[in-house]
């Protein structure tokens, strides 16, 4: 079941009866300082828009700019490459950059990776890293999930922020993610941020905090 410690079964939701609210050990570090922040906060969520995450940032006193990238849709909609004329790495980065649609010059303060790196093969992880690199600054933080062993497929969930130290989780349509990249594989391919802290959870899963 959920690999984070469950704090409440969810009567929290109306439509998604299976949603659970679970405690996080590293989300608070990723969100450090946002409660007292005055200047605009720029956040990228690799998923599609969620009620919990929007509600959380709506409660802040500072202006917020949230980008919901819906990366899963992008990945699943990619056509098979033409074997005689495959797109170059640079062309694919350019296409992903257009899809992400992050305003040029925007410096991201927080990137909510959730488990979306495990929807991607390692080449796509590297492409994402290249697409995000121009938006990384010294205080950018990332938050997501990994796995201790790359032979373990990660159970697939949809995620949202519930509070500074809690995450909403509900099972995704796919029972398991296509990939279960190890911490080392992510470190070698998602180079725009480095994994600064990892907390081992149940079933070999890791909660990750990333920094430049």
């Amino acid at each position, binding site marked *: 079941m959920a690999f984070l410690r469950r704090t409440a079964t969810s009567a929290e939701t109306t439509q998604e009866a299976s949603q659970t609210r679970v405690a996080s050990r590293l989300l608070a570090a990723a969100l450090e300082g946002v409660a007292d922040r005055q200047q605009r906060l720029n956040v990228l969520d690799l998923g599609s828009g969620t*009620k919990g995450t929007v509600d959380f940032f709506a409660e802040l006193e500072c202006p917020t700019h949230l980008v919901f990238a819906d990366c899963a*849709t992008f990945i699943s909609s990619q056509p098979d490459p033409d074997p005689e004329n495959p797109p170059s790495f640079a062309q694919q980065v350019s296409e992903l950059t257009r899809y992400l649609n992050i305003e040029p010059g925007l410096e991201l303060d927080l990137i909510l990776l959730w488990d979306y790196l495990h929807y991607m093969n390692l080449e796509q992880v590297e492409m994402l890293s290249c697409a995000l690199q121009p938006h990384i600054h010294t205080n950018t933080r990332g938050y997501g999930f990994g796995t201790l062993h790359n032979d373990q497929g990660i159970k697939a969930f949809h995620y949202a922020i519930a509070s500074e130290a809690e995450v909403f989780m509900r099972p995704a349509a796919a029972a398991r993610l296509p990939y279960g990249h190890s911490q080392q594989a992510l470190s070698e391919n998602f180079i725009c941020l480095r994994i600064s802290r990892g907390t081992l959870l149940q079933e070999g899963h890791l909660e990750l905090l990333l920094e430049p």
Partner: protein
Amino acid sequence: MIGQSIEIKGTITGNENLVIEGTVDGSVTLPDNDLTIGESGKVSADLSAKNVKVEGQVTGDISGTEKVVIAKSGRVRGNITAPRVTLEDGAKFKGSIDMDPGEAAKPAAKVETKMPGGVESKQEAS
């Protein structure tokens, strides 16, 4: 109300509340009123109103001077700007959201045009 069988291409402006259940391609501007895209509404347009509620499909940017709500049946691809934004469980959204609670706290600018004799002018919907 724009009914299910109605298709409009162009610009819609006015000063009364509007519900769109049909198809609109263009732009909708209701500066002082509420706009609802009903469950059967399909809109490819930039939308601007005091309050905007989306229960159908929207491709385009949405601006609300007070609040924007994406209902559980809503599907939105575009950028949202409003002091307050709410996504209901089940809503589908890709794009950006700009929220500034400070904008909601500011009193709305009131523009009145006094005609000779003290009569207030009122802009009619076009």
